[in-house]
C-alpha cells in the first residue's frame, strides 16, 4: 500500500543545509562488531592468563584461520547479493585435491599447478553461477547440490586417500614466514624482534592514517559531515595500537606469515572492489532491491554470475592454503568450512535479506570465531562446548542485528 507517512515527513523535515552538521552519531550497529571483538579478545586473554596474545599464539591464530577468512571474503559478496554458498567447503576439498594430484602425481611445476587449480575454482564458480544467475535456480539449492557433487569429485580425484606431501614453496605460502631480511633489533624487555616486520608495520600504519586523513579532508572540502578531529585521532590511535601490537608480537616470534601478506592484499583489494567499483556497488544494489536494480540498468545476471566465479576462485585459493598447511589433500578436507564462512559473514554484520555487509566485517566475524576456538582450546574446553558457544554467538549476533534494525525503524 503506497500510503504516505506524514509522521516521517515531519521527522525528517529539517530544512536542507540547516546550520552546522549534526553531532556525529555513534553507530552501534556498525561499530558493535569491533567492540565485541575487542571484548572477546580481552576476555580470553584474561581467562588464559595472557596465553592468547603470546607472540606464537597470535601468529598461530592468523595462520589457523586464514583459509576461513579467504572464504569469508568471497562469501560476504555472495551474501550481500542476497544469495548463499553451501558448497564452499567441498570446493576447498576438490581444488585442494586437484592441486595435490597435479603437483604430487603428475609432477607439474607448482606455479602452473596453482594456476590450473585457481582456474578450476573459476570453472566451478561459473558452473554454479550459471544455474543461479541465468537459469534462475535458488543459490541454496544449486550450492547444496554443489556441496554433494564436489565432495564426491574430491573423493573420486583422490581415490579416497590422502595425497601429499606438497612442494616446499606451496607449504611456505600456507605456513611459512618471510625471511629475516634486515636482522633483529632489541625491544628492551620484549626481547629481539625482526626489523623488517616492524618497518612494514610502521609504514602500514602511516599509510592508513594518511589515507584516512585525506579522505576526511576531501569530505570537508565537499561540505560533508566529518567526524571531529578528536574522535578521528582517537580512532587512528586505536588502530595504530592494534596493528602495531600484532606486528610486534609477530616480529618477536618469527616474521610476517606469508598468508598474512596474502590476506592483507585480498582484504584491501576486495574492500576497494566492494565500496568503490561499479561492480561492487551493483552487488549492493542487487541485494537491496533486485527489481529496482534491473530497472536501473544493472546487469543483474552478469553480476550474479561473476560473484559466484569469484567465490570459486577464492575457494580454490583457500583450498591451496589449507591443503598446503596439512601438507596433504584429504577426502574430507574443507568439510563444514562453508558454515564457518557464512557464520563469519553474519557475525560480521551482513543482513540475512541481502544488501548489507562489509569485507572487514566478515573478516572480524571470522576472527571472533577464531579467537573463541583458539581461546577455548587453550582453556582445555572440549570441542562440543566450543561448537555450542559458536552457535550461540551466531544466534546472538544476528538477533542483535535484527533488533537494532527494528529499533531504528527502517522501512522494511
Amino acid at each position, binding site marked *: *500500500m*503506497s500510503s*504516505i507517512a506524514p509522521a516521517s515527513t515531519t521527522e525528517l523535515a529539517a530544512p*536542507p543545509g540547516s546550520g552546522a552538521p549534526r553531532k556525529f552519531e555513534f553507530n552501534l550497529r556498525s561499530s558493535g562488531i569491533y567492540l565485541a571483538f575487542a571484548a572477546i579478545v580481552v576476555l580470553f586473554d584474561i581467562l588464559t592468563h595472557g596465553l592468547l596474545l603470546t607472540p606464537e599464539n597470535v601468529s598461530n591464530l592468523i595462520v589457523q584461520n586464514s583459509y576461513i577468512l579467504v572464504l569469508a571474503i568471497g562469501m560476504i559478496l555472495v551474501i550481500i547479493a542476497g544469495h548463499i554458498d553451501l558448497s564452499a567447503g567441498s570446493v576447498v576439498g576438490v581444488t585442494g585435491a586437484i592441486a595435490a594430484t597435479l603437483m604430487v602425481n603428475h609432477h607439474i611445476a607448482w606455479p602452473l599447478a596453482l594456476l590450473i587449480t585457481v582456474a578450476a575454482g573459476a570453472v566451478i564458480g561459473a558452473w554454479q553461477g550459471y544455474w543461479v544467475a541465468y537459469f534462475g535456480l535458488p543459490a541454496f539449492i544449486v550450492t547444496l547440490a554443489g556441496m554433494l557433487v564436489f565432495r564426491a569429485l574430491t573423493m573420486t580425484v583422490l581415490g579416497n586417500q590422502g595425497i601429499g606431501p606438497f612442494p616446499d614453496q606451496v607449504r611456505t605460502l600456507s605456513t611459512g614466514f618471510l625471511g629475516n631480511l634486515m636482522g633483529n633489533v632489541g625491544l628492551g624487555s620484549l626481547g629481539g624482534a625482526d626489523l623488517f616486520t616492524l618497518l612494514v608495520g610502521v609504514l602500514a600504519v602511516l599509510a592508513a592514517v594518511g589515507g584516512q586523513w585525506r579522505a576526511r579532508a576531501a569530505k570537508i572540502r565537499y561540505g560533508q559531515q566529518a567526524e571531529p578531529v578528536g574522535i578521528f585521532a582517537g580512532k587512528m590511535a586505536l588502530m595504530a595500537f592494534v596493528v602495531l601490537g600484532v606486528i610486534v608480537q609477530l616480529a618477536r616470534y618469527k616474521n610476517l606469515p606469508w598468508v598474512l601478506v596474502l590476506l592483507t592484499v585480498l582484504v584491501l583489494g576486495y574492500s576497494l572492489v566492494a565500496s568503490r*567499483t561499479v561492480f561492487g*556497488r551493483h552487488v549492493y544494489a542487487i541485494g537491496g532491491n533486485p527489481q*529496482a536494480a534491473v*530497472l536501473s*540498468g544493472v546487469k543483474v545476471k552478469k553480476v550474479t554470475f561473476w560473484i559466484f566465479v569469484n567465490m570459486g576462485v577464492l575457494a580454490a585459493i583457500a583450498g591451496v592454503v589449507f591443503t598446503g598447511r596439512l601438507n596433504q589433500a584429504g577426502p574430507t578436507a574443507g568439510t563444514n568450512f562453508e558454515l564457518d564462512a557464512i557464520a563469519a559473514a553474519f557475525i560480521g554484520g551482513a543482513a540475512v535479506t541481502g544488501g548489507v555487509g562489509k569485507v572487514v566485517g566478515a573478516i572480524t566475524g571470522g576472527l571472533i570465531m577464531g579467537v573463541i576456538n583458539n581461546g577455548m582450546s587453550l582453556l582445555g574446553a572440549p570441542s562440543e562446548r566450543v561448537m555450542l558457544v559458536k552457535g550461540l554467538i551466531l544466534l546472538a549476533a544476528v538477533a542483535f542485528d535484527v533488533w537494532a534494525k527494528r529499533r531504528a525503524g527502517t522501512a522494511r
Partner: protein
Amino acid sequence: MDDNILHMAGITKTFPGVKALQDVNLEVKRGEIHAICGENGAGKSTLMKVLSGVYPYGSYEGEITFDGEACEFGNIRDSEARGIVIIHQELALSPHLSIAENIFIGNERVRRGLIDWHRTNAEAAELLRRVGLAENPTVRVSDLGVGKQQLVEIAKALSKKVRLLILDEPTAALNDDDSEHLLDLLRDLRDEGVTCVIISHKLNEIEAVADSVTILRDGRTIETLDFHTQTVTQDRIITGMVGRDLEHRYPEHTPNIGEEILRVEDWTVFSPTQRGRKVVAGANLFLRRGEIVGLAGLMGAGRTELAMSVFGRAYGVDISGRLFKDGKEIKARSVDEAIEHGIGYATEDRKRYGLNLIDDIKRNISAAALTKLADGAGLVDPHEEYRVAEGFRASMNIKAPAVTAVAGKLSGGNQQKVVLSKWMFADPDVLILDEPTRGIDVGAKFEIYTIIQRLADAGKAVLVISSELPELLGICDRVYAMAAGRITGVLERDQATPERMMTLMTQTTESLTAQEPVYVPALEPEHEQEKDQ
C-alpha cells in the same frame, strides 16, 4: 420487510494523509445486480474492503446495515458468516490444490477429525454444476484457465451460503466468451435470490447486466442511477465518473515542441505469465522533443506493460514491433541498452521497483548512471557522488536532513523526487514517468508537474502515464488513450475533454471483436491493483 438488503451510510475512511472515502452512501436492493463505477482511485475497492471487514469496524466512520441488522465486522470471517463474500480481482486460489480443496479451504468437510473426501468432492461437484463448470472436482486449479478459475471462486462463495456476492473487476482478465458466461451466471444467481455488487470498468457489460449503478468519484458518492426507471447510457455514466471540475491546479506552461525523437511502431507484447495472451496489441506512438505526452487508460489497459516493454523489454515476452530513436531504428534488448539509447523509465511502484529502500539517498540517485561518477581506474568517486546528490536535494527540494538519509524513511513525495533525481542524473532524451504523482499530496504534486515541465523545456520528451485524467489534461500537450492493449486514439490538448478521453478509454471489446480474437490484457496484480492511497 425492507426493500434494501444493504445500507452503507456516511462511510469515511482515512489513510495517513489521504481521505480515501468521504461520507459515502450505498443502498443495494434485495436481489439486484448493483454496479459500482468510478475512475482508478475513486474508492471502489476501499469501499468494498470496508464492507467485507478487510478494514475492521472502528477503522472507518459510518454505519453498515445488512438485512436489517447493524454490522460491526472485525475481519473477513465475520462478514462471510453473514453471507457477504468478496471475490477480489486477483484470484485467491491455491494453484496446486484441487478444485474441491479450494472450494472448501478453511471450511473443510470433516468427519471424526478427518477430511471426508467423498462429501468434499460430491458437494463440490454439485456447486460446479450450479456455476456451469464442467470439470472434475479433483482437477488441479493451475490446470484451469482464468475464466474457469473465476467460476471456482464463485462456487467457493456459494459454498459459504452467500447472500451478497461482491465481484471486483470479475471480467478484466476474461475473454468475451468467458465474460458472457460469467454475466449469465450472475443473472441466474440473481434469480435464485443472491444479490450481487459488481465493480467494473466495462460499461457495456454494466449496461447489459446491472439493475442499478452507483458512481463514485474522488472518494465520494456522486449518484445512483436505476436502469429500470430511467434511461442510463454509457455516456451518462461517463459524465458522472469524470465530473466537470478540474479541482487540481496545474502550473502554466508554453511548450516548445521540436522534432520527433522516439517512435514506436506496431508494438505487440505477450504476457510472461499467461501464455498466448496479448497485453499490448499493435501499438503506435511517437514523442517529440520538448513535448509532454500523456498515456491514459483504465486498469489493465496495458499502459505500464507498453512502457516497460519499450524500456529494454523489462516486461513481456515475444515482443514484436519497431523502435526508432531520432529517426534511426534501435534495438533496446535490455534495460542498460535502453538507458544507453537515452530512454529512462520511472516506475509507478517506487518502493518495489524504484528504490533500494535500505540504502541512502545519494546511492539511489546515482544508481542508474554510476559510470558517470567513475574515474579512469573505474573507481566511483564518493565525494563527487555526494556533491551531485546534494545538488539534487537542493534543486528538487527533497526534504531530508542529509543525502546520507535512508531512502526507505522518506515520505512518498520525497521518495518520488529521489526517483526523478535518479533519472535526471542519468539524463535520458526520453523519460517515461509511470504514475508520477501516485500517493503524493497535492503540494508535492504541483512540484512534480513543475519538474516535468522543466524536463520538457530542456528538450526532452516526457511520456506521462496516469490514472488521473484531470492531471493528464492539465499538463500534457497530447494524450494517447489505451484500452485492452490498443491505442484507441490520440487527442491534442485543445481537443481533449474528459468525456472524449473516457469514451476512448472504455472502447474495449465490442469495436475490436471483428478484427481478431480479443485478448484482454493481463492484470499484473501488483501493477494494476487499485492503490489505497
